[in-house]
């Protein structure tokens, strides 16, 4: 078993979930309507739960306890894609990011539900069922706002254009990519991206939204190896603020 490869896979997934979970929670109290405030708050709670389950697997592989890993690392130690650290922006951008990320997240967990690494299989089987609701929520709003009126369509299209290259950055390959595929642990980022593009396209067509031309596709890589924007630094500072006041406190 290639422990380093598994750890890297778990870290990037857990960090994506922790960071998007934090961003989702920033809508608590500020959502445009009550139901959406509740939806983003609920998804925040789900994402943190999923991150915690993965951090626990990392702890079983010898890493520090979940709270310490989540709240006591500096930004450059995070393996999350830059896409997830970007500020929430307007609701259109948050919805587009939610749609692009959760479609990928669901496909990732669906593929891991048949991984050769048993501990992750069990967690993935559980999580993929919960993610149905996240994708269902995202698809509903993307289609609704894509077609509602001129302004909503234009806003969603602009948000999609802004998000796209960052979203492609989620599929940055690991240096362990070949080993993970050969050992049957993970199908690999390329295969995942192919599935993702297909599903994303199906929904965008229903929403009458268009992907940027393929010649414009320039994936924003770097997050997986610790290169981040200034947005992650302030996010991490805020997220760990209470924990760092008294690291030995028992919650």
């Amino acid at each position, binding site marked *: 078993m290639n422990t380093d490869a598994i750890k890297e896979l778990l870290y990037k997934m857990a960090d994506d979930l922790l960071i998007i979970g934090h961003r989702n929670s920033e809508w608590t109290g500020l959502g445009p309507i009550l*139901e959406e405030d509740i939806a983003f708050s609920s998804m925040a709670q*789900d994402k*943190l739960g999923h991150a915690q389950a993965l951090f626990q697997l990392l702890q079983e592989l010898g890493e520090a306890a979940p709270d310490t890993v989540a709240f006591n690392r500096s930004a450059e130690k995070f393996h999350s894609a830059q896409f997830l650290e970007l500020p929430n922006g307007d609701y259109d951008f948050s919805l587009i990011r939610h749609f692009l990320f959760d479609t990928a997240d669901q496909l990732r967990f669906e593929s891991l539900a048949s991984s050769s690494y048993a501990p992750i299989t069990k967690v993935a089987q559980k999580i993929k069922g919960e993610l*149905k609701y996240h994708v269902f929520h995202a698809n509903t709003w993307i289609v609704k706002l894509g077609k509602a009126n001129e302004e909503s369509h234009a806003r969603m299209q602009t948000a999609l254009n802004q998000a796209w290259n960052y979203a492609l950055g989620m599929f940055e390959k690991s240096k362990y990519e070949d080993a993970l595929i050969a050992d049957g642990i993970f199908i690999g980022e390329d295969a995942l991206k192919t599935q993702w593009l297909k599903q994303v396209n199906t929904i965008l067509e229903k929403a009458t939204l268009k992907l940027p031309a393929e010649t414009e596709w320039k994936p924003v890589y770097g997050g997986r190896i610790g290169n981040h924007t200034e947005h992650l630094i302030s996010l991490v500072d805020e997220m760990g603020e209470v924990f760092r006041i008294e690291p030995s406190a028992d919650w």
Partner: protein
Amino acid sequence: MFTEAQIWEALEVVKDPEIPTLSMVDMGIITKIEIRDKDTVFVEMTPTFAGCPAIKMMEKSVAERLQEIGIQNPLVVTTFDKPWDSNKITARGLSCLKKHGLAPPIKHVGEITEELLTNVICPFCGSENTELKSPFGPTLCRSLHYCNNCLQAFEGFKPVV
């Protein structure tokens, strides 16, 4: 020494902290009970949702109940070994949900489809003329619905595979 059946029965008084009419046994989240010796009982639980904030509280309630009936060394663990799904709620559990004003989850056949959420039966008037307002409600396991027949908003317990 207790039998396994006695422990199952003893745990029926431990309720779900978010739905106080429903026992954890009927909820289907207790997945295994093992009698190790006269003082040691092992209980395995699994959360309804991975991010369920009540899980630590429920572990504690189970341990306290076991101590109450005289088991000095209760061992309670939470795992995903046998993951929860909504078909694991017992028939009594489903009727408890309804009594609490929550539409019980429709039995799934291995797949959650939109149809399972769109025409949920109203727990107040029994009408199928209802609509989904949001797949997210006041707790992770609930959704929001509206009944066009009795003009009442209600919550549903989500089907989960």
